């Protein structure tokens, strides 16, 4: 594979080396990663559940989006940064880990689903913003999002149990 030199370069990077050598760095990164994922997945689930008919403190999809999404994006940035740092510490090992590959593929899928909801699913949102039952296409996007995020957490947690040392 042609990305092997790139992975090796990431592995050899000063920061990666510092994370490997430090005893405290990795557990801290894991804590930040899991906590920020909790907020990403939790907030998104609340919006997904609203699309599936279970509403939180407000029936309005638009209000819920406006309130949940800033928290989602800030948390996602934290999760991505801590995740990237952990990846760098053993880039060559993670890249060939099937659970890691599944997780990344699922993240791409969930991103495509988000774009799908944004472009198609939110059509005429003002008309059904507070309706108990939203259009089937939006419900489908919510269901897909919920299922894919659950799988992301599942495969993510498995990475820590299946990783070959180096």
């Amino acid at each position: 594979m042609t990305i092997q030199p790139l992975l090796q370069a990431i592995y050899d990077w000063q920061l990666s080396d510092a994370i490997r050598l430090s005893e405290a760095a990795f557990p801290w990164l894991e804590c930040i990663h899991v906590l920020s994922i909790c907020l990403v997945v939790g907030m998104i689930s609340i919006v997904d559940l609203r699309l599936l008919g279970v509403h939180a403190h407000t029936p309005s999809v638009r209000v819920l989006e406006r309130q949940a999404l800033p928290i989602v994006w800030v948390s996602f940035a934290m999760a991505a940064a801590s995740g990237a740092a952990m990846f760098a510490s053993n880039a060559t090992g993670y890249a060939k880990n099937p659970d890691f590959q599944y997780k990344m593929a699922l993240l791409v899928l969930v991103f495509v689903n988000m774009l799908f909801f944004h472009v198609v699913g939110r059509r005429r949102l003002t008309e059904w913003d507070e309706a108990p039952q939203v259009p089937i296409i939006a419900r489908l996007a919510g269901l897909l999002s919920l299922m894919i995020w659950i799988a992301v957490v599942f495969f993510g947690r498995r990475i820590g149990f299946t990783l070959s040392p180096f």
Partner: protein
Amino acid sequence: MNEIIGFIYNSPVSSWIRIASWVIPTVQSVHILALALLVSSALLLDLRLAGIYLLRGLLP
């Protein structure tokens, strides 16, 4: 106290969780997903109670 802990450790359910390799990551995933919903719901409620999040937020 130690007897109680030993009893839990030696129970068939505990041995099974230790032996089956997929059980721990799966239980941890369920744990994390439940935490995600708990923390996020609490945060939404707290922000609502703090008056930062309104029932009908400022719509565009």
